[in-house]
């Protein structure tokens, strides 16, 4: 395993290559364009496939095709482009194919701007495409994690036959840090029984919405029972992921009076704020969700009812993750919001808010 100084976006792309990803289709948009650039070179070196697509819709459609053949396939974008990919993500989810889709978040709705933010939680975590699906979503907080969670994303995508979203952001994508680069993994696209190869011998395969594999009546029509069975199947799949795939990091939960909840780039400020506050005798703790779907409810179950409060810290204008936190604590603990908008959250504000909570001066978020 060698170490190298890398940009977050490059580390992420190298992670995909190391995972055995041999198909990448992309379209430039800031702040993720280094992934497109890196892949355009690197795929040639590993005898893989790079296509510069005509659009984000074209790119995700190409991923749909390559994934149907059992290949590890990936595409990446940022907010305005990620929206366009939702059509294809919904089809990939419905056909139960593995694929990895990167969203390097930038600020704003509409055009917004190219600076980093955490504005795409709802878009990426709650869906955005049509229908009944929930992609697994990972939120890295460092250049190393950009690489590590891309590898995990491919693994989990295949285990559950589902699209997996890596929700990074412009800050992590653009910063440089030292990275441990793992050995190259080999991936055999022919190992899956569902992968298309041409029918060769035996029955032909059809990749389409898996709704169509559920029971039909003798006229080939889908009965109400078949729709219900499909619904139960999807519910079980989601439940299984919720039960088994919650990932989070915790700090000082045992003795904390106030707990910060923050993911990605903001969580790094929170970690610094905790240490500063503890020097002042203020006991802060942290829950950092790593899987955003499934949301790590198990971390919240551990929290005592006597905890003074939770502060959700996010880099957007009103707080997109806060609803999930409120559901996770189910009214047991007051939940507060620090939405730092276009600015990186600052330690002073976090500590000031914690003091207000401890003095019972703070107002809960609605």
């Amino acid at each position, binding site marked *: 395993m060698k170490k190298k100084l890398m940009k977050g976006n490059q580390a992420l792309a190298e992670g995909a290559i190391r995972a055995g990803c*041999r*198909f990448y*289709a992309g379209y430039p948009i800031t702040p993720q364009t280094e992934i497109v650039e890196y892949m355009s070179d690197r795929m040639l070196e590993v005898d893989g*496939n790079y*296509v510069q*697509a*005509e*659009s984000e*819709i*074209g*790119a995700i*459609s*190409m*991923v*749909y*095709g*390559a*994934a*149907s*053949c059992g*290949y590890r*396939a990936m595409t990446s974008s940022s907010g305005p482009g990620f929206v366009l990919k939702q*059509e*294809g993500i919904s*089809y990939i989810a419905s*056909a139960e194919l593995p694929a990895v889709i990167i969203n390097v978040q930038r600020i704003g709705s509409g055009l917004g701007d190219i600076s980093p933010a955490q504005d795409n939680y709802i878009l990426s975590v709650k869906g955005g495409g049509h229908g009944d699906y929930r992609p697994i979503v990972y939120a890295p907080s460092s250049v190393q994690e950009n690489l590590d969670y891309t590898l995990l994303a491919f693994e989990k995508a295949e285990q559950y036959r589902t699209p997996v979203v890596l929700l990074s952001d412009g800050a992590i994508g653009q910063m440089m840090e030292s990275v441990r680069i793992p050995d190259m993994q080999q991936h055999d*696209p022919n190992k899956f029984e569902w992968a*298309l*190869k*041409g*029918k*060769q*011998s035996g*029955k*032909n*395969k*059809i*990749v*389409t*919405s898996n709704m169509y594999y559920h029971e039909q009546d003798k006229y*080939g029509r889908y009965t109400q029972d078949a729709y219900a069975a499909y619904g139960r199947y999807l519910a079980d799949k989601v439940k299984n992921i919720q039960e088994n795939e919650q990932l989070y990091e915790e700090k000082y939960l045992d003795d904390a009076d106030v707990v910060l909840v923050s993911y990605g780039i903001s969580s790094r400020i929170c970690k610094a704020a905790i240490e500063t506050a503890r020097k002042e005798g203020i006991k802060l703790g942290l829950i950092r969700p790593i899987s955003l779907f499934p949301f790590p409810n198990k971390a919240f179950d551990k929290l005592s009812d006597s905890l003074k409060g939770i502060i959700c810290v996010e880099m957007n204008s009103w707080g997109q993750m806060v609803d999930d936190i409120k559901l996770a604590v189910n009214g047991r603990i007051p939940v507060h919001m620090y939405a730092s908008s276009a600015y990186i959250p600052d330690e002073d504000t976090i500590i000031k808010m914690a003091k207000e909570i401890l003095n019972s001066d703070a107002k809960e978020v609605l």
Partner: protein
Amino acid sequence: MGKTRITPKVLHDEHKFCAGCGHGTVFRMVAEVLEEKGLDSKAIGIVAVGCSGIMVDSFGIDWIQAQHGRAAAVATGVKRVRDDNFVLTYQGDGDALCIGIAETLNAAIRNENITTIVLNNGVFGMTGGQMSSTTLIGQKTKTSTKGRSAELHGQPLDIFNLLKNFNVAYLARGTITNFKEINKTKNYIRKAVEAQLNNKGYSMVEIVAPCPTNWKLDPVKCMKKIEDEFIPYYKLGEFTNGEVI
């Protein structure tokens, strides 16, 4: 004794298209060519949304059902990773030439080594006969009830006027109004398939075909409508480098 035409084995079930629909004849020709070339075990087909999607039930090759319009992009993903397989898209005009025009054009511009079969009947069939990019001037549809007008809706799209400017391998337009045209069209499909097998790049065959249900005409009158109204606008033949062969 005349020759007996044997149904290709790859067609394993009866199709579910409307009576008199052009799809039955067209996909039979595609099946015959694939079988003749020994490709049915190597083929991966992409259909998208619309009537063409029905054929996966009876046409026994590997299929992917793509999003509406995106078949050419999905085919790009397939062919790039499985270049030993034969990759085709089978689409209607609404799919390939309206919503999917960007994907279709860009696959051709990249000269992807895939084959596209487009059935052009000038309407969105499955949704009940609405205007498409290829609806003729004056043609009445559910969304052009007074007939398509150039002022309101623009000119009908002749895809070959666009594609023949690019360095693509093979383009042809046929119809199925009689045996002679059917045989010609089948030959076009054969040449398009060979273009891919010889790694020449992108090939497309557009087939002008009837939609009796939405044209509200019996199948015989449909054929006359194609000859009188469609063919004068959508010229038949093979097209390459800006020339009719």
